[in-house]
């Protein structure tokens, strides 16, 4: 049985761990609130962009000479997976769930005889995927040191994707991230970026729009040429924001659990400590009494 001193040190260790996890939980909670605000603030732009793309894209998609960003290259050979994860651990299953989904899809695509390339955003995803698929990772974009995600932070990622696409490096591009649903639930999302997935126009148009017929200036094609890269940037930005909120949410609940576990542990250890102390006193008493009786 552990000595009293051992138990005391253990209780002390667990207590200081609990202090850390509790602080981390509180930090995550306040960061989460900020991240959530950012997601909310970005929504109007993305929604309008989507609506415009919906009305434009559906009319263009059938025509010949539609921009490849919209309709793709017509092939389905090489897939680019953009895996967006966090920069830090200690956030429950946040990073591993993204990595797991990416890994499963890589395996599936490879089994179908397709070529796969991976672009990692964030350190954690790369660390996991590197073990198995190091030769598939073409680049990693790290987001370390960014305190508050701004639109410009999404830029390098979008530029890289567009450059690769123009160089003919891939045919289909899918973005992996966790969408924020609530503090305890983050939904793994795969979003196809290229060819652009068009929103359903029918349920997008509010009653105020009705079947408004738009004039286009300059013309549909030119607008689309400008709209599509911007849309890609917005999609990446949104995914990053959702990811940031999810990460903080996941960390918050993970740290909440850790704090509770530490509390349970302390209770158990304290009980054990008290029992041991009592047992020691009892045995000392017995020794004294039996010593006195022997006299």
């Amino acid at each position, binding site marked *: 049985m552990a000595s009293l001193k051992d138990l005391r040190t253990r209780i002390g260790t667990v207590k200081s761990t609990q202090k850390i996890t509790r602080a981390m939980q509180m930090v995550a909670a306040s960061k989460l609130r900020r991240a959530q605000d950012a997601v909310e603030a970005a929504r109007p*732009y993305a929604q*309008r962009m989507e609506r415009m793309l919906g*009305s434009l894209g559906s009319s263009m998609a059938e025509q010949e000479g539609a921009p490849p960003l919209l309709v793709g290259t017509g092939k389905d050979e090489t897939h680019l997976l953009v895996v967006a994860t966090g920069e830090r651990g200690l956030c429950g299953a946040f990073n591993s769930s993204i990595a797991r989904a990416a890994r499963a899809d890589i395996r599936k695509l490879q089994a179908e005889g397709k070529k796969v390339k991976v672009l990692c955003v964030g350190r954690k995803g790369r660390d996991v995927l590197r073990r198995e698929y190091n030769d598939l990772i073409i680049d990693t974009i790290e987001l370390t040191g960014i305190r508050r995600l701004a639109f410009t932070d999404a830029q390098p990622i979008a530029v890289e994707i567009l450059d690769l696409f*123009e160089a003919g490096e891939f045919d289909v591009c899918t973005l992996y991230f966790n969408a924020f649903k609530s503090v305890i639930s983050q939904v793994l999302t795969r979003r196809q970026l290229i060819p652009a997935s068009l929103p359903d126009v029918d349920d997008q148009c509010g009653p105020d729009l009705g079947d*408004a017929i*738009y004039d286009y200036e300059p013309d549909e094609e*030119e607008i689309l040429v*400008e709209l599509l890269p911007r849309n890609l*940037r917005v999609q990446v930005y949104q995914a990053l924001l959702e990811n940031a909120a999810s990460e903080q949410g996941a960390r918050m609940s993970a740290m909440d659990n850790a704090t509770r576990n530490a509390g349970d542990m302390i209770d158990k250890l304290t009980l054990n400590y008290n029992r041991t102390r009592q047992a020691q006193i009892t045995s000392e008493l017995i020794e004294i009494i039996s010593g006195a009786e022997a006299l």
Partner: protein
Amino acid sequence: MADKIAFELVSPDHLLISEDVDMIVIPGGEGDFGVLVGHQPMISTVRPGILEVEKAGAENRRIFVNGGFAEITGDRCAVMTEEAVPVEELDRANLEQRIKDAEEDIQEARSDLERHLIDLKLATLRETLQVV
């Protein structure tokens, strides 16, 4: 209310302006145009330039927008831009930097269309610089 148009200026980061105004002058891709209530529904590109908002009882506001799109639906007008700065806050050095960037971009442009677009952008940037 009937003679006002609901105007929204949105950037990816947030909703910048959302209010009823009398008229908006938008630097469209093919020239500036004014939008009043009851405008024909249309979608237009916006080149980098100065957007003007007119509202009765208030001073006209002038805002620099860094390109984007405008969507107009009769009683609503939404301008989407990646960056918007009120003219008073613009700073010369920043604009000059942008012009330099655009000049570099034009060297690297791959297609005629792209070159044409950057050229347009450059022209407005220079124009804006004059105003400031």
